[in-house]
């Protein structure tokens, strides 16, 4: 069964080509296709899932993701998310979804004040989402991060934890969630979360950069996120 991804493209997006490459080329033999959706569009057309990619949308003016959250296309993105459609925000996409109110909390400057670009590990947790259900909870995977504003904050993190909305947590190579394994100062080592309904996911690590062995030692763990969506869509479990 064919499944069509929309990859939102803002001025300043820079992981949009990478994301489209995964859903339109790498996973083509699994029936996956994709297209770019320009930020000035007001309709999504016929898409089954959405990727809000990383980058520096609108130069990250004011706050990371603040301008993009009000781009013309966001009204359609919000409607798609509210109707249960699977949406993933990666890095700047995560920041945009928080600013747009589709995900809770906020992402601020890394504790170190540095832009951090490196391979990390994160543990899969929480409830099964369309982007993580093929990864068993408790497993940890390697993915790269590349951000300056990835320090996750939430005014009531206990509730978020209680609702099993924490989906990815920074850990060490053995899967241990330690302070040393937390690259940016995020509360409770949080690397990614989902919304209350579970269909909208945001994460700072870059799964789209960990889908092909040719890209280096990071492995192909990121592929599982996109495969999860294809499985979810095939089972008709979303909308």
């Amino acid at each position: 069964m064919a499944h069509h991804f929309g990859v939102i493209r803002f001025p300043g997006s820079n992981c949009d080509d990478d994301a489209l490459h995964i859903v339109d080329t790498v996973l083509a033999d699994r029936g996956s296709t994709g297209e770019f959706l320009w930020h000035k569009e007001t309709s999504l057309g016929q898409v089954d899932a959405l990727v809000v990619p990383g980058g520096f949308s609108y130069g990250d003016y004011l706050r990371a993701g603040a301008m993009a959250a009000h781009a013309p296309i966001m009204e359609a993105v919000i409607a798609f998310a509210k109707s249960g459609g699977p949406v993933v925000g990666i890095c700047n996409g995560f920041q945009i979804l928080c600013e747009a109110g589709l995900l809770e909390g906020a992402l601020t400057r890394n504790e170190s004040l540095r832009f951090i670009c490196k391979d990390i590990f994160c543990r899969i947790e929480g409830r099964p989402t369309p982007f993580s259900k093929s990864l068993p909870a408790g497993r940890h995977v390697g993915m790269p991060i590349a951000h300056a504003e990835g320090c996750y904050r939430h005014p009531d993190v206990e509730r978020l934890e209680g609702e099993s909305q924490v989906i990815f947590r920074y850990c060490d190579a053995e899967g241990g969630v330690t302070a040393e394994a937390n690259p940016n100062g995020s509360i409770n080592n949080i690397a990614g979360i989902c919304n209350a309904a579970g269909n909208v996911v945001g994460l700072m690590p870059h799964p789209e950069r960990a889908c092909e062995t040719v890209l280096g030692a990071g492995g192909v763990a990121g592929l599982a996120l996109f495969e999860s969506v294809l499985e979810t869509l095939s089972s008709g479990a979303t909308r």
Partner: protein
Amino acid sequence: MKAKVYVTLKSGVLDPQGQAVGRTLGKLGYEGVKGVRIGKFVEIELEVDDPKLAEEQVTKMCDELIANTVMENYRVEID
């Protein structure tokens, strides 16, 4: 009219920028700096000339865009 908006981090939100500036002030010999918090200052020129209306408009702007109320507070002054 002109509106002045002061956006500050809520207490309890870590401010690594402020901490870095505080440490550097210490290195420069400024003893007794107990803490530094960094915020934003935004000036907005408005067409309206009713201060109450101006404050209403700018408050809405702050809630919608200028501040992220998850981690920031804001204060509006109308000139």
